[in-house]
């Protein structure tokens, strides 16, 4: 049966070598290779070919301004590149997904709603994808 229920099997989550596993509630790691149209006259169906990789990692983190937590980890990364690593353990199998040199464009510094724990959604784009 092909199911992956995420309870505690996200075993690693680091941004710029800093563990943010205890602040994360959602991670989406996407390996994308851009689709380029290659259809030409005479073709009766559209054809596509692979372009550049354009990888992405999005995550939702609890906002925390205290030492060594979310804000302190991310504030200095805005407008620069870093590494993101997500490790998943599924039974006896562990996969470690890495984006090397991905770019953080924006960081919501305040996201306040009455009566709710504050969270921030961030997106790392680009970088070289690898899996081990």
């Amino acid at each position, binding site marked *: 049966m092909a199911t992956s229920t995420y309870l505690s099997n996200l075993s690693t989550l*680091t941004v*710029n070598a*800093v563990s943010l596993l205890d602040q994360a509630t959602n991670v989406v790691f996407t390996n994308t290779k851009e689709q380029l149209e290659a259809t030409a006259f005479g073709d009766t169906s559209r054809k596509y070919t692979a372009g550049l990789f354009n990888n992405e990692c999005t995550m939702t983190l609890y906002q925390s301004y205290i030492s*060594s937590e979310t804000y302190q*980890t991310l504030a*200095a990364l805005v407008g620069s*590149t*870093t*590494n993101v690593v997500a490790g998943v353990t599924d039974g006896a199998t562990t996969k470690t997904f890495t984006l090397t040199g991905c770019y953080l464009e924006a960081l919501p510094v305040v996201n306040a709603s009455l009566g709710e724990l504050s969270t921030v959604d961030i997106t790392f784009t680009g970088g070289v994808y690898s899996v081990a």
Partner: protein
Amino acid sequence: MKYVIQSEKIGKIGDEFVPDYGINIEALLEGGFISTATETKSSKVKSEPKE
């Protein structure tokens, strides 16, 4: 340049931090996660050789 871990979020405090390729060192220094290791020089003063 050597770096020393200052936060448990990246390893054992006091250990040397060896950055992987792609790690943003400036951000880690700015956030206080690591510090630069200051090399300590020997305080011993060489005495003049005895004749």
